[in-house]
């Protein structure tokens, strides 16, 4: 049981100040922009909720939001089961385990624009390894800059390459914490591998999996650099995800008001979904 101790606030104070400086002031700026119109020169006009209304009724926003949900949904559907399968098939002990883990974690340590550039080089139709294999060896017409389907397949594959290891490492951490006695008991009871998974491994992985899903949701929903470097949002607008559209509006067209309104709605959606996950997670902590 934790002790009640109000002075603990002093321990938290430096964190609070630093994060507040970085979070609250920019957030106020965004809120400020979102209700005004500007034509440059620091001249602002009050617009009220106009930008929010326009945005919520705009097809462009709906399309970008739809693509964003499709992307995040596909990412979770592929990476979570795949990550669990790989973690289950890893040896639990042995000299190869640290080697495997380090190699698996490597993609996550590469700067995001390098990830984009790397996949660009990898998929170039004539001189990239994947592009060459697909076009010349397999005879499949594959060009990311022409076909929206190829572009989508590539960004999904890139993200699977980049982040599945996170799910693997988390699930693996959950699996190795299961005492051997559990497996022995299951063996004596003659439990099938599926039953072992369903009643022993899955419950033990539940908490780490929630963290994995939470992190994968947040990061895939906010993805910008990798996709931008790889496809630039194209061909056409087919891979213009929410954040890419936002940066286009804010820094490309310099429409600060609409961009700010979009930022707030964007953040609110992320927050809402993450809050749901977090509530689930802390409910487990309390047990």
């Amino acid at each position, binding site marked *: 049981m934790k002790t009640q101790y109000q002075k603990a606030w002093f321990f938290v104070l430096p*964190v609070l100040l630093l994060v507040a400086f970085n979070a609250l002031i920019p957030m106020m700026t965004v809120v400020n922009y979102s209700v005004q119109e500007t034509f440059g020169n620091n001249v602002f006009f009050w617009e009220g909720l106009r930008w929010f209304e326009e945005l919520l009724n705009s097809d462009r926003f709906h399309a970008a939001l739809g693509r964003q949900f499709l992307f995040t949904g596909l990412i979770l559907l592929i990476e979570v089961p795949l990550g669990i399968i790989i973690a289950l098939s890893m040896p639990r002990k042995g000299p190869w385990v640290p080697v495997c883990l380090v190699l698996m974690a490597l993609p996550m340590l590469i700067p995001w624009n390098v990830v984009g550039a790397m996949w660009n080089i990898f998929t170039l139709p004539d001189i990239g390894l994947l592009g060459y294999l697909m076009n010349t060896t397999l005879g499949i017409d594959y060009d990311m800059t022409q076909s929206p389907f190829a572009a989508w397949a590539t960004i999904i594959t890139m993200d699977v390459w980049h982040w599945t290891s996170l799910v693997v490492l988390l699930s693996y951490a959950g699996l190795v914490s299961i005492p051997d006695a559990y497996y022995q008991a299951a063996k004596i009871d003659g439990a099938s591998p599926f039953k072992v998974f369903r009643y022993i491994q899955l419950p033990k992985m539940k908490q780490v999996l929630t963290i994995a899903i939470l992190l994968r949701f947040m990061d895939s929903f906010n993805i910008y650099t990798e996709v931008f470097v790889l496809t630039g949002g194209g061909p056409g607008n087919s891979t213009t995800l929410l954040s890419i559209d936002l940066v286009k509006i804010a820094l490309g067209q310099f429409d600060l008001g609409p961009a700010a309104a979009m930022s707030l709605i964007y953040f609110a959606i992320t927050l809402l979904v993450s809050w749901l996950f977090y509530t689930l997670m802390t409910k487990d902590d309390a047990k």
Partner: protein
Amino acid sequence: MKKRSLIPVIYIAFLMLPIYWLVAMSFKTTNEILAGFSLFPQSFTLENYATIFTDPTWYWGYINSIIYVSLNTVISLAVALPAAYAFSRYRFLGDKTLFFWLLTNRMAPAAVFALPFFQLYSAVELFDTHIAVALAHCLFNIPLAVWILEGFMSGVPKELDETAYVDGYSFPRFFTTIFLPSIKAGVGVAAFFCFMFSWVELLLAKTLTAVEAKPIAATMTKTASSAGYELGLLAAAGTLTIIPGAIVIYFVRNYIAKGFALGRV
């Protein structure tokens, strides 16, 4: 058993392919790259690496990145340690709300903050300095560090604290000589994560710098767009950005799985 261990092998091979292609590309000459497909470098060259190590705009990009990443790691850990201790040991007014609010900053899309950050750091005259990027990255690294450290600290029984106080240890002495060594792994893992996320983030780092503190990754973007098709050079720069990550990951290799679970297994 044999069949099962094939899955990780295939997966790792899939992970290594694009990396191999990047590395192979970095040893090729521009002529060879443009001439067509070749699985291995035909005319092996170190030219691309030589360019990076002799041109100050290239190697300073590296030094800049390492400076702000290190600064960020130190700042994040220094403030996150006491905060994580408070969250793991005490209940205080608003603790749960505060913890969730900290986490929300990990969720904020960097794209949302790019422009306001530029204005904020220009206003306090820190634009284009290493400390600006280090502070900006605190936005998502401090919450993460608090989260990880809190997980590891909660694994240390509270009796340890109580025994130390009974033995007459003051709080600072207990914290530095007894408590910190017992969560060594957690500190290492938290440092690793701060390093990692600061190293891979580019949008904010690019927004907050122009010349003096420009990160290596931004130098690369510029080359990609201005110099046209210098793929070999780009590949060499990319290959070099993988090395620091590979080095730090080696140090935490035994805690990596537990670390990714934020100390909660």
